C-alpha cells in the first residue's frame, strides 16, 4: 500500500473539510481566548467569535466528495447559529460570557453539519454524539438541582438510544457489508436477501435511535425535562438543529428502505412512531402549565406530523416534507426567541405568568400571536401552507396506494390540529384576556436585537403564506438528498 499516494489523495480532498475545519477552528479560538484578557475587555467577544465561525462555516456548501452528499439545510444551520449568537450577544448575563458555553453549542453545530451532509453511518454516529454530549451538559448549565436531574435523564436516554442505534447499525453492516447509504440499488439487493423480521429489527433499532434526536415517541421522555431546564436560547437549538439533521438522515435511510420488499412492514414502525408522537405530544401538552414544557410537547407533536410524509415518500411528498421542516425551523427559532424575551424581561416561566403582558408590549404580543397561529397551522401564516402540503401528501398517499391508513391519518391529523389550537391559544389567552395588576419587570432594557430578529422571522413566516413559491422554489431547486 503506497501510503504516500493515499495521503496525496487526501490532501486534494481536504478542501472538503473546510466547513468542519472552520467550525473546529472556531472551537479552538473560543477556548483559547478564555485564557486571554479578551473577556474582561469586551464582554460580548465570545458571541462575536461564535457568530463569525459558526454562521459562516456551514455556508461552504461545496459538494463534499468524502461525505458523498450535498445539502442545503446548511443555510438553516447558519441562520440558526446567527440567531443564537445575536440572542446571546444582547445579553449581559455572567453565565453566558463563558467560552465553554459557546464551545459546547459549537459542537452541536459541528455535529449537525456532519449528520446533515453525510450518508455514512460512522460519520453520522459521531455527528450524533457531537450533538448529544454537549446537549446533556448544556441541560445542566444552570447548575440547579432540577437541571442536573434533567441532564441525568437526558444522558441515560441518550446513552441508551445511542446503544440501540449502534446495535441496529451493526446488523445493517452485517447484512449488507456497507456502512454507507450511498448506493441504494446495492443496499436494496442485499436487504432483499434478508428476512423481514431481520430487516424490521435492524431498521427498528436505527429508527428508534434516530427518534431520540428528533424527539419522536418512544424516545421523547427526555425532551420536556431538558426543555424546561436548559437555558432558553439553547432550547431553541435543541428544537431546531438536531431535529433537522436527524430528519434529513432519517430521510436518506427511508429512501433505501422504501426500495426493499420489506417496506410494507417497516412502514408500520414509522406509522406507529408518527401517530403516537402526534397524539401523545398534543394530549400531554394540554395539561402543561409551564411554557417551555408545553412547547416541548408541541414539538413532539410536530415531529409526529413531519413523520407522515415519510410513510409515502414520493418525490412530491418529500418536497412537502422539506417545506414543513424549513418552516418548522423558522417557527421554533422565533418561538424560543420570544420565550427567552419574556423570560428575561418579565420573569415568565409558567403560562399564568403571561397574564396581562399583551398590553405591556403589544408589538411582541402580536408577533407571538402570529407565531402561535402559524404553529397551529391556520391562515394567513406559513404554517398553514406547510400543514396543507402535508395533508395533500396524505391525500396523494390515499389515492396512489389506495391504503385507507392514509385516510385515518388525515382525519387524525385534522383532529389534532383542533387539539393543538386549544393549548397554543392558552398563551394569547393569558396575554390578552387576563389582567394582571402588577407585572414583575426585572429587566427594563428591551433587547432591540431580539425584537428585530423576532420580527424578521415572523415576517418570513407570514411571507411564506402569501408567496409560498419562493420557499418552495428554493427547496425544489436544491438537491437535499444526494
Amino acid at each position: 500500500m503506497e501510503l504516500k499516494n493515499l495521503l496525496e489523495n487526501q490532501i486534494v480532498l481536504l478542501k472538503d473539510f473546510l466547513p468542519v475545519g472552520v467550525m473546529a477552528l472556531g472551537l479552538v479560538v473560543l477556548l483559547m481566548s478564555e485564557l486571554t484578557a479578551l473577556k474582561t475587555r469586551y464582554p460580548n467577544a465570545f458571541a462575536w467569535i461564535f457568530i463569525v465561525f459558526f454562521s459562516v462555516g456551514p455556508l461552504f456548501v461545496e459538494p463534499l466528495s468524502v461525505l458523498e452528499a450535498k445539502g442545503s439545510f446548511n443555510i438553516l444551520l447558519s441562520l440558526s447559529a446567527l440567531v443564537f449568537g445575536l440572542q446571546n450577544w444582547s445579553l449581559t448575563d455572567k453565565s453566558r460570557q463563558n467560552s465553554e458555553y459557546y464551545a459546547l453549542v459549537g459542537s452541536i453545530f459541528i455535529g449537525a453539519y456532519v449528520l446533515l451532509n453525510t450518508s455514512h453511518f460512522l460519520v453520522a454516529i459521531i455527528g450524533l454524539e457531537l450533538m448529544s454530549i454537549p446537549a446533556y451538559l448544556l441541560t445542566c448549565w444552570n447548575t440547579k438541582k432540577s437541571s442536573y436531574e434533567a441532564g441525568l435523564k437526558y444522558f441515560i436516554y441518550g446513552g441508551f438510544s445511542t446503544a440501540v442505534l449502534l446495535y441496529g447499525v451493526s446488523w445493517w453492516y452485517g447484512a449488507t457489508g456497507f456502512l454507507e447509504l450511498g448506493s441504494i440499488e446495492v443496499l436494496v439487493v442485499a436487504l432483499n436477501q434478508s428476512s423481514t423480521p431481520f430487516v424490521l429489527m435492524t431498521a427498528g433499532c436505527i429508527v428508534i435511535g434516530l427518534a431520540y434526536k428528533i424527539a419522536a415517541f418512544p424516545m421523547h421522555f427526555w425532551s420536556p425535562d431538558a426543555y424546561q431546564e436548559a437555558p432558553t436560547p439553547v432550547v431553541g437549538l435543541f428544537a431546531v438543529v438536531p431535529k433537522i439533521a436527524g430528519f434529513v438522515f432519517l430521510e436518506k435511510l427511508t429512501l433505501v428502505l422504501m426500495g426493499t420488499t420489506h417496506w410494507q412492514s417497516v412502514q408500520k414502525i414509522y406509522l406507529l412512531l408518527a401517530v403516537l408522537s402526534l397524539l401523545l405530544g398534543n394530549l400531554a401538552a394540554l395539561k402543561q402549565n409551564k411554557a417551555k414544557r408545553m412547547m416541548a410537547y408541541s414539538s413532539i407533536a410536530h415531529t409526529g406530523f413531519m413523520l407522515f410524509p415519510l410513510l409515502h415518500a414520493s418525490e412530491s411528498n418529500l418536497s412537502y416534507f422539506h417545506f414543513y421542516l424549513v418552516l418548522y425551523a423558522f417557527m421554533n427559532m422565533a418561538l424560543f426567541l420570544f420565550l427567552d424575551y419574556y423570560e428575561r424581561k418579565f420573569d415568565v416561566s409558567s403560562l399564568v405568568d403571561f397574564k396581562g403582558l399583551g398590553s405591556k408590549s403589544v408589538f411582541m404580543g402580536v408577533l407571538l400571536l402570529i407565531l402561535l397561529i402559524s404553529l397551529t397551522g391556520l391562515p394567513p401564516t406559513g404554517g398553514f401552507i406547510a400543514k396543507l402540503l402535508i395533508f395533500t401528501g396524505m391525500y396523494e398517499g390515499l389515492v396512489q396506494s389506495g391504503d385507507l391508513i392514509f385516510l385515518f391519518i388525515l382525519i387524525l391529523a385534522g383532529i389534532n390540529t383542533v387539539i393543538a389550537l386549544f393549548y397554543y391559544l392558552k398563551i394569547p389567552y393569558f396575554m390578552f384576556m387576563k389582567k394582571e395588576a402588577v407585572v414583575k419587570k426585572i429587566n427594563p432594557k428591551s433587547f432591540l436585537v431580539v425584537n428585530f430578529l423576532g420580527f424578521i422571522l415572523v415576517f418570513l413566516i407570514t411571507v411564506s403564506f402569501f408567496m409560498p413559491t419562493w420557499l418552495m422554489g428554493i427547496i425544489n431547486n436544491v438537491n437535499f438528498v444526494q
Partner: protein
Amino acid sequence: MNWLTILIFLPILSALVVGLLPTGAYLKKINIAVAGLQLVVFSWMAIGFSTDVPTSSEYSEASFQFVERANWFELGLGANNSLDVDYFVAVDGISFSLIGLSIVILIIAAVSSLSIQKNIKGYVVLFLLLNGAIIGCFAALDLFLFYLFFEFMLLPMYFLIGIWGGPRREYASIKFFLYTLLGSILILIVLIALYSSSYVPTGVEGVYSHSLNLIDLSKAANYHVEGLLHAEQSGTLLGLTWRHWAFVLVFIGFGIKLPMFPFHTWLPDAHVEAPTPISVILAGILLKVGGYGLIRMGYMLFPSEANDLAWWVALMGVISIIYGGLNALGSNDLKKLIAYSSVGHMGFVLLGLASATSEGVLGATYQMISHGLISPMLFLVSGVLYDRTHNREINNYSGLASKMKLLTVAAVVAFFASLGLPMFSGFVAELLTLLGSFKSGATNGLLPHWMPVVATFGIVISAAYALWTIQRMFFGPFSVKEQSWSDQLYDLTSREKFMLFSLAGLILFLGVFPSFLIDMLDQSVAQLLILMQN
C-alpha cells in the same frame, strides 16, 4: 382596481392605520366612518348591478359581476402539475345581497360599539379586520381565498368575545373557536381533495394545474379521471362514493357554523357572552357565512350528491327548527332565547336548499337575508335592557311597556318579524321555503310531505315563544326584580332609535316589497338550480 377589492381592503388597511394611531374614543367614529364609506361604495355598485344575467348550463365568469382576477401563486406539486391560486373576487346576486346585508349590519354594530369603553384601539382594530374578512369571504371565488377569509374571521371574533364579553366569556370564546375550527378542518380536507382531483388545462399543451377556482371546479370536465372526486370514480367508503363523503364533510363543516343540530351548542354560549355589537355581527352575518358556504361549496360543486342526500339535509333542518324552537321556549335568558330561535330559523335554510325547487332555494337565500336583519334587532333589544340593568332574565321584568314605549314598539316589531307575520320579511322567506318543500314532494320527490308539515309546527312554536315573551316582559303591570332598576329603565336614546328603527324599516321594506330582493337573487338561484336539477 375593482370596487369589490376596495370593499375588502378598505377596512383591513384602516385597521393597520388605526393600529398606528393613539387610542381614544374618536377611533370608534373612524370605525363607523369606514363602514359608512363601504355603504357608499356598495350603493354605487348596486346601481351598476345587473339583475338579469343570462343563465347557462354551466357556471362561467359571465354568471358573475365585478370580476377581478389576478395570479397569486403557482406552487409546484409533483412533476408537471402546480397548485394555481388566484386572487379571484366576483359576486352574483346571492353574494351581492349578502355583502349588502353585511355592510348594513356592520354599520349598526359599529354604532352600537360606541358604548364600548375598554381598550378601544384593540377593539376597533379587531372589528375592522373582522369587517374585511367578512366581505372577503362573500366575495371570494377562489376557494383558497375563501378559506383564508373564513379562517381569518375566527381570530378577531375569538378576541372580541373573549376580551369584551360577559362573565363566562373565556369559556364561550374558546368553545366558539374550537367548534368552528373543527368545521373548517373538515372543509380543509375537502379542499385538498378538490384541488388534488382537479385537472385544469392551463392553455399550454400537456400542462395542467390543480385549481381551487370555484368556476373551474363546478365543471365535471375539470376533474382528473383518477382523482377521488371525479364524477365517475367508482370507489366507495361505507357505501357512499367519495363525492358523497365530500358533500357530507362540507355539510357538517358549514353546518357547525350555520348552526345545525347537533353542532349548535357553541351558539348559545357565544351569543350570551358576546358584547351586544358582536352578538349582532354573529347572528346577523357569521351564521350566514355557514349558509353561503354550503351553497357555494356544497351545492355548487356537488349538486347531484346534494340531491341524493337531500332527505338527510332536510331532516337536519327540520330537527333544528323544532329543537331550536323548543329550547327557545324553555329559555329564561333573553339572549339565549334569541340564540336558540336562530338555530330554528336557520333550519329553514337547510330545508329550502334541500328541496331543490326554485321557491325553496329562493326562500332559503331570502331567509338568510331576512334573519340577518331580524336577529340583530332582537339582540339590540336585549342589549338595550342589558345596558340599563345588567340583567337579561325574562322573569325579572314585567310591564315594561308602561315605562319604555319605544323599546316596546321595537321589540314587538322584532318578535313579530321573527315569528313570520305577514308584512315582515320573515314571512316571505318562510312561506317560500315551505312552498318549495311542499312542491318538492309533488315534483322531484326529494322530500316527503311530513317535513314541511313538521316545519310548520316550528313556526307555531316560534309564535308561542315570541308572543309569550312579549306578553311576559312588556305587558301587564309594571314590576322589576330589583327596586333600583325602575329608575334606570329610561327609554331609547337617539342612537338606539337609529339602530332599531332603521333595522325595522328594512325588515318592513323587505316584507312589503319582496320583489326588490327577489329580483336580485332570482337569476343566481336559477343558475344554481340548473346545476341541481341536472
